[in-house]
């Protein structure tokens, strides 16, 4: 600072150092009992007796079942799971987009004034945030169990369950991605009289598109896994097939199904990669 005389000795110590050290220690103190509570003891994994049990368990999975009849079932179940995940995501997307737009502060015109609209906007945003919490508070499996009771066995229950929880999750993360994006372009457009939707398209989305797409594809991948899990409670697809294979003590079928899981995750990864390349 040339020209201005410092009033006291210059501060050379990082003023945040103590607080950071404190936070790190607190985190460790809190996490340690949690690990105990979760009965996390890595040493038991390496116990020779346990290793032997695991080895024979894994050996039972080989070879995977590949007979024509089972593969037919497997294909149908895979398509059913994919359809459940995709339809659920589409509905969730339709729920999430308006919620995210309502919740994000970046596109608030009233924050520039007039002042009376400002607290109304705040109330709306808080309400929407509460709704988003409620949507994702209950795990999708619980919703699925309820909907299976109401709608009967099959993927329809899974689609609705996914739409509700994932709608809340997508909305929350979309809103957060938009808030973390540089707001100046959108703000400049709003200052020139643009509407919120137009400011979103011309100012915000060009900056946030890549992250939004990659998160959405990742969520689709999670939805595929969730669709499998919901199959166990009667929502059809790969999960139901897996449930039958496990109950029928057919490890070969279980491993075939697991191979399909792996392929689906790889597929999601490839889709994400391609989309990001297209958008970059």
């Amino acid at each position: 600072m040339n020209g201005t005389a410092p009033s006291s000795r210059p501060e050379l110590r990082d003023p945040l150092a103590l607080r950071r050290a404190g936070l790190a220690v607190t985190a460790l103190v809190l996490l340690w009992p949690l690990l105990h509570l979760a009965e996390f003891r890595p040493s038991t994994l390496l116990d020779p007796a346990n290793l032997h049990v695991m080895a024979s368990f894994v050996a039972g999975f080989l070879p995977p079942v590949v007979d024509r009849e089972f593969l037919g079932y497997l294909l149908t179940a895979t398509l059913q799971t994919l359809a459940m995940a995709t339809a659920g995501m589409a509905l969730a997307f339709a729920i999430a987009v308006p919620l995210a737009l309502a919740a994000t502060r970046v596109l608030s015109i009233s924050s520039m004034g007039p002042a009376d609209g400002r607290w109304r906007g705040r109330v709306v945003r808080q309400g929407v945030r509460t709704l988003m919490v409620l949507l994702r508070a209950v795990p999708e499996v619980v919703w699925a169990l309820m909907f299976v009771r109401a709608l009967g066995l099959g993927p329809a229950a899974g689609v609705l369950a996914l739409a509700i929880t994932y709608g809340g999750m997508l909305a929350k993360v979309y809103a957060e991605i938009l808030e973390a994006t540089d707001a100046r372009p959108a703000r400049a457009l709003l200052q020139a009289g643009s509407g919120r939707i137009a400011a979103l398209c011309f100012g915000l989305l060009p900056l946030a598109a890549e992250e939004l797409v990659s998160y959405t594809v990742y969520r689709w991948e999670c939805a595929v896994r969730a669709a499998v899990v919901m199959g166990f409670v009667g929502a059809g697809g790969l999960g139901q097939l897996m449930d039958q294979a496990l109950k029928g003590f057919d490890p070969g079928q279980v491993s075939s199904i697991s191979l399909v899981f792996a392929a689906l995750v790889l597929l999601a990864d490839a889709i994400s990669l391609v989309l990001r390349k297209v958008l970059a």
Partner: protein
Amino acid sequence: MSLRLEGVVVVHANGRRALAGIDLDIAAGERVALIGPSGAGKTTLLRVAGASLRPTRGRASVLAADPWSLRAGVLKALRARIGFVHQAAPIPPRLRVVTAVLAGRLGRWSVGRALRSWLLPDDVAGARDALARVGLGERVFERCDQLSGGQLQRVAVARTLYQAPALLLADEPVSALDATTADTVLRELVGYSEAAGATFLASLHAVDLALRWFPRIVGVRDGAVLFDLPAAQVTPDRLAALYAGDHAAERDAPVTEPHGATPPFASA
């Protein structure tokens, strides 16, 4: 009267008083330059003039309307008639040049037309025309991240020309440009203001540019108007008083210089 500020005081949320009672009348079609040391309140004054910042006290009348008594829809229409060239072009790098320019008219377009134009630019001729005026007519379909910083700033100027505002505001519009380009860009903005009869109010770091392109000069210091004079009456003495204690200005005299490195201790 295109712009009338009466006793405008702005105290920012952090308690800092940016404007300490500004009175300013600017007639329609007038061209006025704001000069003064950094931290003097030029940007805040421009935001008040642009109906995007409400004064803490005092009255602001913009294009013959009090923006803060208008309903939301009318205020939006008023803002569509105000063009603002920012110090750093607020344009996402991923946008194509044509889309960045067309965004200038979003205030006048319906949502439907905006979305259509977002997917498929619908007035390429208009965008090309605005770009040609800043020497970028050939770059219509390139992406903004393929342009240099100076070219991007010219795209932002083209956007404002395409907007065709009645009140043209500019906050350090040419501080990131080289001397020749800065002159060209100011010529275009001044030319637009003359041709369209638009009022033009700009803050400038480079006093020589202010004196060359603006008939009326307003010197701002510590949030107040220090002088408000025809360009011919702005003497070196007055400039010395205006910039007294401002290190950046004293160091390299008032010439075209990059802005942004000055720490805000001058007014402390």
